[in-house]
């Protein structure tokens, strides 16, 4: 009886192919297939994993193509009841906010796999990577609060094994710290989830539901209840982002993780926190989020400046990128809590940008490590001479991370700063801007020390990028340039969803209206002018017509 109810489609759109579930199940199936392969054939498991992740990526791109641009709501929704009497359902959906995160996940995994390889025990390695992919997809697509939480937690397990099993140096310590730190952050979230569900059911008199659309619509919690629950959620997300005082797990995990681990950690898993703030903070608790905004803005700004300063003095390239992530994620937080359309659009865009550019940076540093067996900046010099193509690629990716106009990083950061400056977060924007300058400082300085100068010892003979390596990073380079030069297709899809979110916030926060940006006002004036002109013309025509009739 239970099984039949589970597989009975209760409400699904007229999509013949279960697009979103397949994004979770294809990687899982791949993991299962790899598990059945013979253990001594490393190449089999690698090819299977590449194929599985590439198919998943292709499905996600297909979904992007089918995505209806002007629709701000959830699309491709697929719902199945899971535990009926508790209102828990297996429901997936994608809107403009999660769309690009899903696609980015679909792209980063196959490229990360292509760019790296397991140095031992390839079978287990690829199984964990595929499970990680399934879990990451699940987090971004869940429309059920409990299901989100389950995916949010389950991704810890494969990442824990990837860091612990295939990492560098102090890997076991880093893996344990990563696991326990994040689990501690989300421990209270489960209580918070249950509180929100039970109080909503009680206050509205309705049935229990874990569906975030219903919960967001109901807004049945009192101010203090919402604040308390948001606090439990925020703790989980703040650890994941990570926000300033809770960031200490990140440098360890990033540095000790194998390349694929660092790529996915930075590219995908940090976004779970910012995405959580957006979807389960702003959307579920608009009023409490609005009240807490100054706290998050402050922590975000501290993160920007602190991350940048600490990154500057790092000796290890991976650690440098890890701290730069803290700074970049600070920007995203500023954008989110600017609470206006530009800021949030910029934040969503920047989540994707950071995934692409930091993912690419980690891949490149991983290649340096493969060749030189060190990531220490002092031990590297003059690589440009031996590996000019490598240096060129590195430059492009680095400049994207710095936020050079014409590359993707600029678009996101600019929108965030614009949004923050126009909103209540003006002074935060002013301080945050220094982060842009500091980013240029630490990245360019690191680049100078690693690639310029005269190569000594092994540095002089470092192998340049091979064709296959160049090929595997090329898609990321194309995205960096493409999204920088022509971001409109991306923003067009993000904007409707963000606008709906803003309307939702405005409707639920007393006395809050989106801080009106100045540029659109001018735009309005111009339109008013045109309208006035039109009216005048019409009047003139009408007069002329009346005259004609009169004659």
């Amino acid at each position, binding site marked *: 009886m*239970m099984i039949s109810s589970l597989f009975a489609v209760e409400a699904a759109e007229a999509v013949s192919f279960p697009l979103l579930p397949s994004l979770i199940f294809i990687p899982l199936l791949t993991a299962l297939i790899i598990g059945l392969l013979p253990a001594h054939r490393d190449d089999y498991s690698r090819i299977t994993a590449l194929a599985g992740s590439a198919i998943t990526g292709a499905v996600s791109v297909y979904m992007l193509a089918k995505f209806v641009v002007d629709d701000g709501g959830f699309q491709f929704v697929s719902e199945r009841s899971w535990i009926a*009497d508790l209102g828990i359902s297996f429901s997936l959906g994608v809107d403009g906010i999660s769309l690009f995160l899903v696609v980015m996940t679909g792209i980063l995994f196959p490229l990360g796999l292509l760019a790296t390889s397991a140095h031992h025990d390839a079978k287990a390695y690829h199984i964990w990577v595929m499970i990680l992919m399934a879990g990451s997809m699940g987090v971004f697509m869940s429309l059920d609060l409990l299901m989100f939480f389950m995916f949010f937690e389950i991704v810890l397990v494969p990442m824990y094994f990837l860091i612990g099993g295939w990492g560098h140096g102090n890997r076991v310590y880093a*893996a344990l710290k990563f696991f326990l730190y994040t689990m501690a952050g989300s421990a209270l979230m489960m209580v918070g989830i249950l509180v929100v569900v039970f109080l909503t059911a009680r206050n509205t008199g309705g049935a229990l539901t874990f569906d975030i659309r219903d919960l967001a619509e109901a807004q049945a919690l009192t101010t203090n209840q919402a604040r308390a629950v948001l606090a439990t959620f925020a703790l989980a997300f703040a650890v994941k982002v990570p926000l300033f005082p809770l960031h200490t797990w990140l440098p360890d995990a990033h540095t000790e993780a194998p390349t694929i681990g660092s790529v996915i950690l930075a590219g995908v898993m940090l976004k779970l926190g910012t995405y959580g703030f957006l979807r389960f903070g702003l959307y579920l608790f608009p009023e409490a989020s609005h009240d807490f905004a100054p706290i998050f803005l402050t922590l975000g700004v501290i993160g920007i400046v602190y991350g940048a300063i600490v990154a500057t003095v790092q000796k290890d390239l991976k650690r440098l990128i890890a701290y730069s992530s803290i700074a970049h994620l600070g920007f995203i937080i500023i954008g989110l809590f600017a609470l206006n359309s530009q800021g949030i659009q910029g934040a969503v865009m920047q989540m994707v940008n950071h995934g692409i550019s930091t993912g690419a940076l980690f891949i490149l540093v991983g290649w340096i490590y493969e060749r030189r067996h060190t990531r220490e900046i002092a031990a590297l010099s003059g690589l440009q001479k031996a590996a000019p193509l490598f240096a060129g690629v590195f430059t492009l990716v680095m400049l994207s991370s710095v936020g050079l106009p014409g590359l993707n990083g600029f678009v996101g950061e600019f929108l965030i700063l614009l949004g923050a400056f126009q909103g209540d977060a003006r002074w935060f924007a002013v301080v945050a801007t220094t982060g842009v300058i500091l980013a240029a400082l630490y990245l360019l300085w690191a680049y100078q020390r690693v690639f310029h100068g005269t190569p000594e010892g092994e540095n002089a003979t470092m192998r340049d990028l091979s064709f296959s390596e160049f090929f595997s990073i090329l898609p990321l380079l194309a995205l960096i340039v493409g999204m920088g030069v022509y971001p409109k297709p991306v923003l067009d899809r993000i904007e409707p969803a963000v606008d709906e979110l803003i309307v939702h916030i405005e409707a639920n926060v007393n006395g809050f209206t989106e801080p009106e940006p100045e540029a659109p006002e001018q735009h309005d004036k111009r339109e008013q002018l045109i309208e006035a002109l039109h009216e005048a013309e019409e009047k003139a025509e009408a007069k002329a017509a009346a005259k004609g009739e009169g004659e």
Partner: protein
Amino acid sequence: MFAQTIATPEIPWSLLRPLLFFAEGAVILVTLTALFPRLRTKSFPALYTAAMAVGALVTLVPIWRRVQDDGPQIILDGALAVDGFAIFVTAIISVAVFFTALLLDDYLRRENLDGPEWYVLVLLSASGGLMMAAAEDLIVTFLGLEILSIAVYVLAALHLRRSESQEAGFKYFILGALSSAFFLYGIAMIYGATGSTRLGEIEQALALVNERGLSPVEDSSLLLAGMALLLVGFGFKISAAPFHLWTPDVYEGAPTPIVGFMASAVKVAGFAGFARVFLGSFVPVGGDWRPVVGAMALLSIVIGSFLAIKQTNIKRMMAYSSISHAGFILIGLHAAGSTDQGVSALGSRSVLFYLFAYTVMVGGTFGVATLVGRQGDGAHSLDDYAGLSSRRPLLAGLLVVLMFAQAGIPFTSGFWAKFGVIEAAVRGENYVLAAAAMIAAVVGAYLYLKVTVSMFLTAPESDDEGVMVESGGAIAQVPAAMIVIVAAVGATVLWGVLPDLGGDFLRTAATSVLR
């Protein structure tokens, strides 16, 4: 010859079949093996015991049907209840007996111990557990408790060549006997306060109020002392803090398959009796005992989680883990004692699901521990698990699922078990209890992670030539034990993905224990 016959109650044998399978089954096994000594050495006793467990499970089906049709039955002149709760707990205990029988078979051969006594005692002990789950009278509860416990005291000490085993049995016996004494004294006081040992009559006596709306017995010191003593007795059996002190020592010393039995069947029976007595008769005075149970829950979780950090012996670690799990189940019991029906239904349901999930997980875990323990049953340190993933990848992979399940990671039954009790606590607005438990659970997770670190992330010991050393012989992956482990992992994952499987049975069972 006698002018006056003693009135004997009618005995509905068909409803007693599961109990007969265990109690009579034990007696028949003794007789058979005494008559045919050849049966002693073969796998016959193990197969026989497993068959008894399966038989009990099968006979539960018609009984369940009858309970669904005719409603719960009170039989044997009010001594036993046959209801959804009893059926559910009987099923769990049968599963535990099945697991134990399969694990014992190879264990005894490996350790050069033979004899059907082990199986006889397991069956007898299980019959005591069944009585506790069904008892409608405190005296019957006590009988069940004693039948259950005395058999397990002997089992703990039955590895004759290991002094640790003897020590464990002795320790368990002394403290167990003490707690039984507490329990019996508690019964006497309850009888004094309420005038009955029948659970239903006690409940009625407590629910009585005089014309001023006050209960004449509610605050009587006799009643309070009686309840306190019962709590001590149950607290000992379920190894909840502060009555947990015996657990690490006994778990470490007792034969490994028997520890699995203690952690599953004995704990389940203890909780079943606890729930039956306290939910069946003491709900009207819930204000008196629920705070104590809440405190015990919190204390157990904290002690179980924090003291486990320093342990390096798997069996000791599992002992602390079982203390912390007992704490979680107590949170569910705390909620089940609420007078709010919605809360109490969620609470008792969470208790039953937790007991089921935990029995399965712990059965599989001790299955692995039995195999890794190797000849002599001594290889239980974390070092013995080092590099298990490269030596025995299947075993390590299965144990990892069980470890993460006990840590409460999603998509395992352990997650839903934890979710259930926290849900009940939140529904009952015990936010502090829920939050504190969740935080302590993170500390507890370290314990399970340590095992995975050892298995997957630590290089195995190797000699000078790089050949892996396997002290005490190789780890043999015996079919019978592997069945247990694979079944346990399968069920853990199955109920992790489909937690509502058999949900109707669970819900009926859960509500039937509430009055």
